[in-house]
């Protein structure tokens, strides 16, 4: 088993965030394991180090934890930290929601981008955070992804992203939808530059994020049991009354249906990324 070469640090205070840790299957402080559907309380969850006691599924975590979990100690350098969202449509209630999300997560938006070393390999690294308005993609998320991809091209670095999103950000209307086209076009430029692009789909990745940059990577990895799809399962059930097959839209189902390359447990993610980076650099360790 891989041992991460770092200790969790209180880089920023996550205690406030923890309390409001949203879960897409929560009811009154209880959590449903996305992998095995076991219900457990907040207390049990913390006690188990964010693991499901029944199936070892690792629950939704934060963008900062993602970054620490795979990058070499002290190697991460953040970009565009101050980019923050306006209310271009003057959508009712949007500013309040943004303010609340910022306060609760101590993040400026639903994504962190920057550069990091992973096992000595320099990369451009991004991580989305489901706690910030369900990881929805508005102007800032799209812009930060594009800037990060363009910096990857400028510096000839591999691009790695942890995806996690409820989809487009309704409150920004068409400006939000267009981020799908904008990020997909940026992937086109990554391809033209011949750079490695790895996306890691985590629970949940749906809507406009799945239908744009997330599914366009050279190598698509998913965490076990993650919900991944275009339309969410509830909408499918509600609008069409269709019965959902067992395991529908979970990582393992997507692997079987040819959509992803590898299902990899969280604790072995770093070692897999290092092996992939190593092969892609022709075995010449950075």
């Amino acid at each position, binding site marked *: 088993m891989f041992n991460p070469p770092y200790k969790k640090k209180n880089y920023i205070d996550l205690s406030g965030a923890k309390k409001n840790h949203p879960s897409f299957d929560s009811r009154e402080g209880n959590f449903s394991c996305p992998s095995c559907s076991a219900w457990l309380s907040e207390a049990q969850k913390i006690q188990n180090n964010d693991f499901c006691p029944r199936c070892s599924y690792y629950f939704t975590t934060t963008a900062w934890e993602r970054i620490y979990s795979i990058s070499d100690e002290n190697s991460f350098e953040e970009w565009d930290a101050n980019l923050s969202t306006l209310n271009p449509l003057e959508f009712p209630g949007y500013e309040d929601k943004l303010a609340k999300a910022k306060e609760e997560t101590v993040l400026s938006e639903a994504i962190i981008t920057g550069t990091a070393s992973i096992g000595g390999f320099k990369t451009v690294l991004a991580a989305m955070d489901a706690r910030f308005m369900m990881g929805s993609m508005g102007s800032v998320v799209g812009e930060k992804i594009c800037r990060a991809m363009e910096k990857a091209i400028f510096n000839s670095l591999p691009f790695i992203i942890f995806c996690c999103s409820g989809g487009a950000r309704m409150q920004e209307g068409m400006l939000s939808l267009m981020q799908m*086209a904008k990020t997909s076009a940026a992937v086109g430029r990554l391809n033209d530059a011949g750079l490695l692009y790895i996306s890691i789909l985590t629970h949940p990745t749906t809507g406009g994020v799945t239908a744009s940059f997330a599914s366009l990577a050279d190598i698509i990895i998913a965490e076990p049991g993650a919900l991944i799809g275009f339309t969410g399962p509830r909408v*499918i059930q509600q609008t069409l009354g269709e019965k959902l097959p067992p395991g529908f839209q979970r990582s393992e189902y997507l692997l079987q249906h040819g959509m992803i390359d590898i299902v990899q447990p969280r604790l072995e993610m770093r070692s897999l990324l290092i092996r992939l980076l190593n092969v892609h650099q022709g075995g010449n360790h950075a």
Partner: protein
Amino acid sequence: MPKNKFEFEATYKLLESKLDELKDLSVKLDCDFSNEIASVERRINQLKEERYKHLTPWEQVLLARDLERPMTRDYIKLLFTEFIELHGDRLYGDDPAIVGGVGLFCGRAVTVLGHQKGKDTPDNIIHNFGMPHPEGYRKAHRLLLEAEKFNRPVLTFINTPGAYPGTQAEERGQAWAISQLLLCLSKLKVPVISVITGEGGSGGALALTVADRILMLSNAVYSVASPETCASILFRDIKRADEMAAALKMNASALKEIGIVDEVIEEPALEPLQDSPVFIKSLKHSIKKHLDSICSQNIPELLEQRYLRLRQIGKFHE
């Protein structure tokens, strides 16, 4: 909030039926009211025109969804001198919700793609209400690569509630089909023009709307999600859809203002679009004008502009 466009049209329907009664009566009683009738007719049309100029956002949504509006196949008949439909993704199936083929537009060979809704319920079932499965997007993808091979410009006609939200579509990679099409269009080495003709619904519409020029009919809409979906997600109350229709700024003039749409094609208020030679001429003229303009550009320049066009969309501060 009206449930369909006939509710806000009820007043005129009533007036028009009264007028018909008057006409009948004038014939029956054999007295000439023709001047008066013509005057009332003019007045009704004035009122109607005025009303259509001031539709609420929700009424615009209803109008954009109207099944009596022309669909992609109608526009092809109205605008093209030749069209040969091509079928299939060469992978799994042929999707009737997307029409594709080659044709002649103003003497120029083009590849045409568009969403196809039905004219009535049985027809709509065949066309899956204009909601494509992955096969539809993959057919489009194949035909786009063929357009590139033959150096043929591409015209797309947009009119869909969205990509089909079903289990089979998910199973066969709906998200993958859409993202691959977005990427393909963003670097396709031929000019691309999109015309939003009715309902531009979410990612399912966007997948065919990555273009060098985007035209939009004045009563069409284009949005990140339907007002119903938006109301249901944000308020868990579908009845607030009309509020959302306003909040989403999804009509043609709003989208022209934020630079997503290049030109709005005015629709006539009083005639069905397919019966208005003025409208058809103006649509044809606009498409031709933009096509001539982008066809004269060299491809690397065109692709750079297409990228920048997308790249600059978004509002934020640093």
